[in-house]
């Protein structure tokens, strides 16, 4: 490994304060060319803030950034990009209605005699895709592609800028195992070309698999930088949370009771969708929903809640048919839905914590005039009971970290005292400590007799906390596996589920 010359990127003693919070305090990061450097820490540890300081989205209060030993100070992400520093965000910002190549060359379309040179754009896009072994049509409309393809396109875009430093923020959160392998191939290909990669993720196994170096942050401070081969999952967790974490999952405490929900031959209406899904869900039971990307798990949840239209089939709650044709009806029927896309369908960014907490429950604060006292005390409850880290309840939700936003939305639903909780990727993009809290919360809710359906791409967490797992495959139900029989300390459990998931692919 090349260690003699100046590091590709060196960030030293970075400070950044926001009113009331010291977000970064002497943070540092040193990236060597041709390596993958993982950046780890709980939500709010300062990883994103550090990256935003690098890209000039925030002005740092103090500290120095050097590239190849030369001091740099990027004005904005575009300036960084022009200097070979690119970032692929967890939440993709793409022009959904335009095609792939226009997105890649956005802002710098090649011209010929003053007009757009479409042929050149196509050729160069295709060349990059070929190099990265990506099979995507440069003329496809971005919005019609899967999230994983869209993510790959962002990486290709960085490559097209000849980026020498590439920051990947939670790149695998919506990818299947196969896609992750492909992504890692691309990453290795890039490091061989000398690109330095800053990899932000919460997934321990991936980090240990792909990284050369790992930097751990806590409370805005640099804690440690180690070589990945010297580290173990337990060690990383200890450094991140400063406490030993003996188990990743809390003990199972819920005991399922009588049948609460029955779903019979449910079919979604608008393609792409699923058909013929039937299952029962008992009181106090946690039913996992597993499947590959594109298996229509999210569509199933959204249709149960009336957010997507239903073609046919029945939904019975406690033996009575319920009309969940619209989300407001479903809410009244005791259902709640935590959506996968927090920013698009979860938070009200311009509003404060109070508003975000009470909005689903607004009909319980009085017929004509709303009871402010009760709304305030309910918000306090959300903040205390679910441990939301916020300066005050009047803070705008968009200034909280992703994990804390997620907690507020879970709290929003708990206020409505739902009978059936539909959770779509409840721990997506959330750090280990907060994940554990959310698992405990889900188990506690089930223990109180609530029925939970939980979609997740992380098989260990489904195996860790679910009673049964419904496996979807290509829009159809492939089967339901049971704890104690098919999984839960049973050898080959993951293979059983994966085999089902691949049944109709």
């Amino acid at each position, binding site marked *: 490994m090349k260690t003699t010359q100046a590091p590709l990127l060196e960030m030293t003693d970075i400070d950044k304060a926001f009113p009331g919070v010291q977000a970064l305090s002497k943070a540092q990061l040193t990236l060597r060319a041709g390596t993958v450097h993982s950046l780890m820490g709980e939500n709010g540890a300062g990883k994103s803030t550090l990256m935003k300081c690098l890209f000039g989205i925030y002005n740092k209060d103090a500290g120095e950034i050097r590239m190849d030993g030369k001091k740099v100070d990027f004005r904005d992400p575009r300036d960084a990009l022009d200097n070979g520093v690119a970032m692929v965000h967890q939440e993709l910002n793409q022009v959904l209605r335009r095609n792939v190549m226009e997105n890649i060359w956005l802002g710098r379309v090649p011209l010929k005699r003053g007009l757009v040179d479409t042929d050149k754009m196509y050729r160069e896009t295709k060349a990059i895709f070929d190099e990265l072994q990506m099979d995507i049509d440069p003329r496809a409309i971005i919005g019609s592609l899967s999230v994983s393809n869209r993510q790959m396109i962002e990486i290709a875009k960085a490559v097209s800028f000849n980026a020498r430093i590439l920051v990947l923020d939670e790149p695998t959160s919506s990818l299947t195992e196969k896609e992750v392998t492909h992504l890692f191939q691309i990453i290795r290909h890039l490091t061989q070309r000398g690109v330095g990669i800053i990899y932000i993720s919460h997934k321990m196994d991936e980090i240990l698999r792909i990284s050369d170096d790992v930097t751990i942050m806590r409370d805005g401070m640099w804690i440690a930088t180690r070589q990945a081969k010297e580290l173990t999952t337990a060690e990383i967790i200890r450094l991140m949370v400063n406490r030993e974490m003996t188990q990743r999952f809390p003990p199972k405490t819920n005991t399922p009771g009588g049948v609460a929900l029955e779903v019979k031959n449910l079919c979604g209406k608008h393609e792409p969708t699923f058909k013929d899904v039937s299952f029962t869900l008992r009181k106090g039971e946690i039913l996992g929903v597993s499947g590959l990307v594109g298996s229509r798990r999210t569509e199933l949840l959204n249709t149960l809640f009336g957010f997507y239209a239903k073609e046919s089939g029945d939904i019975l709650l406690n033996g009575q048919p319920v009309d969940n044709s619209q*989300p*407001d009806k*479903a809410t009244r029927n005791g259902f709640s839905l935590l959506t996968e896309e927090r920013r698009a369908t979860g938070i*009200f*960014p*311009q509003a404060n914590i109070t*508003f975000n907490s009470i*909005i689903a429950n607004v009909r319980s604060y009085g017929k004509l005039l*709303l009871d402010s006292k009760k709304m305030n005390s309910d918000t306090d409850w959300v903040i205390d009971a679910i441990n939301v880290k916020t300066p005050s309840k009047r803070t705008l939700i968009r200034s909280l970290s992703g994990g804390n936003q997620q907690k507020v939305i879970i709290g929003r639903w708990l206020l409505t005292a739902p009978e059936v909780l539909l959770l779509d990727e409840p721990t997506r993009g959330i750090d280990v400590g907060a994940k554990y809290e959310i698992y405990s919360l889900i188990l506690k809710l089930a223990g109180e007799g609530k029925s939970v359906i939980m979609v997740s791409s992380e098989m260990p967490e489904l195996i860790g906390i679910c009673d049964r797992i419904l496996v979807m495959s290509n829009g159809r139900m492939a089967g339901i596996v049971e704890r104690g029989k098919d999984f839960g300390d049973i050898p080959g459990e993951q293979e059983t589920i994966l085999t089902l998931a691949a049944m109709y692919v």
Partner: protein
Amino acid sequence: MQHAKTLNKQRVVDFFLHYAMYIILLAILVTVSIIKPNFLALGNILNILKQASTKGILALGCAGLIVLAGTDLSIGRVMGFSAAVTAALVQSVTYRSRYFPEMVADLPLIVPLLASIAVAVAFSLINGFGVSKLKMHAFIITLGTQLIAFGANCLFIEAQPSGTAQALSTFNQTFKDVAAGDLILGTVKIPLVVLYFLGLAAIMWVVWNKTRLGKNMFAVGGNEEAARVSGVNVVKTIMLVYLIAGVLYGIAGFLEAARIQSVGANTGLGYETDAISACVIGGVSFSGGVGTIQGVVIGAVILQAINFSLNFIGVNPYYQYIIRGLIIVLAVAIDVRKYIVKK
């Protein structure tokens, strides 16, 4: 030390951003009162408030639509139609060329008021239906309905017995007393319309801040998809906000007829600009989900104060247009800065 200073500086900048509009506009008013000290006479102030009232009521209505991330271009024409219907129903029964010759006694005022509201509500509900059900952009549907309202209003006015399109005038005394009268307190005459405006503003404050509809309205304006997932009935919320806007436009039309005393086809022309400007100056954000009733009231008053003072010191009317345009541009420029997430 250094740290405290930068924080303080940030706070000062924030303060100016937040109140910049008010500061600039107050500066204009102070300048005017220095040039002409008699500007600050009570009579002038009441006059400003009186002129601000009908447009203020329109602004109260359309502010909700702007919070929903929409707008309303039909305000002026719809209110004009409402005012014409009001006028036809309140003409003095001794006036020979009245709209309804068969009318021989004054109608109870509730009749023209309800008729005026009904007209405005009908148009508002069409707009609301287009936005909520047909998913049209508010700009487009209201662009259409303002033409429809204008055409319908012209037909209505033309249908008078004389067969001409002359303005409807000569109203009965009760109407004038109630809609355009004054509350006399000693030597001070407070225009009733000002009290109506403030009363309606108070009601709207309660609707926005203390009711379920208010919360739902901010939810739909802030993030429609998230609102739907949170169990908000989006269609119903939008329809109700439009319904309320219609009621307010109807009331404004009723009062405006009394204020101008003669309603023609062009009554209300361009009022939407004033109503929307008042909202924008008052901090209702065009990106949706943000705004306060206090802001709208202050916006309406300040806007009228500017108009009045420019007239008062005799600024060329063409310059007045330019200045008013600049104020709107400035208001939006500042408003946008408030929500840019740059740190």
